[in-house]
């Protein structure tokens, strides 16, 4: 079974993608070729941008089952309306109107069970695409790409995670920003969580929220401080008070930011940054070998 690492951060733009693709690249080169990166930031999937030579293996639509009401069978009893917790169904008996609003529907199936007249059935509606790429020379990248206008990002993340391979040694999940349901979905199956932060007041505030979330879920975590040297020392103070391990610190270098901007990040990496990744990977390897395959929720 692979060791699964999720890279997350409450605040956006702290460097989740940079860290995730660098770990992927360095682990595939130096530790094991059997590695998969899964881009769960389905609203803005960016990992693949940094691998222009990636070879597309497969692409498939991701769908959500949307119920529809057959007016010829509907008796307008409104039981489905009462059972729908998401206010997605409108039934107006006097005018014979019965409709389901697909943008509010969570595809829970309650209305279908509720209907005693067999008037509700489901059909698939596209919410995005799921792609898998091979990276030269090693590694697999999978991504989910939310269809523009769809609000079903969490469902798509759930489906992208099903792309996880069994015969790899490592899986890295690149999480979306935030601390709400899409992030929970991304980190739920991970064995270890890396939180990426920056040493600024925004970075610290959002880090605290994310630490609270990961502790609620009961997963082990470590922090990478990105853009180190900018801002202040309060992130460090907080982490030492909370006894949270700092896996590494990536110094802020303007030239490196420019390299990232261009999408060219694996060549000409400053030595100090290279050394940081090396030591972070060493720490992750220790984690993975002491890992016993127990991935239950510990709530």
């Amino acid at each position, binding site marked *: 079974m692979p060791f699964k690492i999720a890279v997350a951060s409450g605040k956006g733009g*702290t460097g989740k993608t940079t860290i995730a693709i660098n770990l992927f690249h360095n682990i595939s080169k130096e530790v094991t070729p059997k590695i998969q990166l899964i881009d769960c930031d389905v609203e803005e999937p960016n990992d693949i941008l940094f691998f222009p030579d990636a070879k597309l293996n497969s692409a498939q639509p991701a769908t959500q089952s949307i119920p529809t009401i057959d007016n010829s069978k509907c008796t307008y009893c409104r039981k489905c309306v009462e059972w729908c917790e998401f206010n997605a169904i409108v039934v107006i008996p006097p005018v014979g109107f019965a409709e389901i609003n697909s943008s509010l529907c969570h595809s829970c199936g309650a209305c279908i069970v509720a209907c005693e007249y067999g008037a509700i059935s489901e059909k698939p509606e596209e919410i995005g695409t799921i792609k898998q790429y091979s990276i030269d020379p090693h590694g697999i990248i999978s991504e989910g790409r939310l269809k523009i206008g769809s609000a079903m990002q969490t469902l798509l993340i759930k489906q992208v995670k099903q792309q996880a391979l069994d015969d790899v040694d490592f899986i890295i999940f690149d999480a979306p*920003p935030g601390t709400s349901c899409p992030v929970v979905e991304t980190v739920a199956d991970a064995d270890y969580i890396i939180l990426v932060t920056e040493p600024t007041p925004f970075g610290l505030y959002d880090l605290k929220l994310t630490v609270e979330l990961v502790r609620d879920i009961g997963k082990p975590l470590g922090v990478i401080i990105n853009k180190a040297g900018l801002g202040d020392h309060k992130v460090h103070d907080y982490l030492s008070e909370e006894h949270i391990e700092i896996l590494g610190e990536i110094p802020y270098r*303007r030239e490196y930011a420019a390299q990232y901007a261009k999408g060219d990040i694996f060549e000409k990496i400053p030595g100090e940054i290279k050394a940081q990744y090396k030591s972070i990977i060493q720490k992750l390897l220790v984690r993975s070998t002491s890992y016993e395959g127990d991935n239950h929720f510990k709530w």
Partner: protein
Amino acid sequence: MKEITILSGKGGTGKTSITAALASIARDAVFCDNDVDAADLHLILSPTVREEHVFSGGWTASIDVTSCIDCGICTDHCRFDAIHRNSFNNLEINPFKCEGCRLCERICPVQAISSVRSNNNSWFVSDTRFGTLVHAKMGPGEENSGKLVSEVRKRARELAKEYNASYVINDGPPGIGCAAISSLSGTGMVLMVIEPSVSGLHDSRRLVELIDTFSIPTFALINKYDIHPEISEEIKLFLKEKSIPLLGEIPFDKSMVEAMVEGKTIVEFDDKLEISTILKAVWKKLEDFNVL
């Protein structure tokens, strides 16, 4: 009254710092933090809370082991894979996977399942040195951020009407999913903050595609344009092609972070900085647009 929403697609491009700067320039506005997931605007505006409200989030179900007859009907019906056996071999609902649809509760033949509604989310109306701020705090891992965004925006609009304010300025969430859609729908104009990187450009393209479905007047700012001038040029071409006016190009300056560390807007930090001058001009252009 005009509602302006600041969005970016990609996170960390500077939405909140720029919203805060506009707050210190705009005289006549109500401010609203639409990034309810990781709300940061209050860190700069230092609000004094005047009203506090609980936002009822989704339901979470749980099973009463003593009345459960272990029939497994709930497991068969749950589409969210939330019901599993625990180490005592009892059926148990994982609260983080539970979607709150309450189907299990309704079909349980012995009424062993009940649900409680989360009241872990709050939203506030506060006073700040720049005017009124409506903001929220979501409990970790909560759902329905889109609904909470609609709720804070609704209150901000009501207050703006009450005060006869000319603007509501919304600090938007990253992404293009449910929170971004809630932040966009019905707003009067969008100000995009774009960062010159391959990801920044890629994400702003997706955002523009989303905004197009709403037909909302859109403007853009390039933040840290000099980090990669060539990509900034590409962004300008893209904006031109989409007929989105570029209102300003902000250089990279560590003062942005230094101001944040001091809890100040960039304009308060140093009124004479190039960034401050640019942002004042940006606000002027937005106001002019509103008059037309």
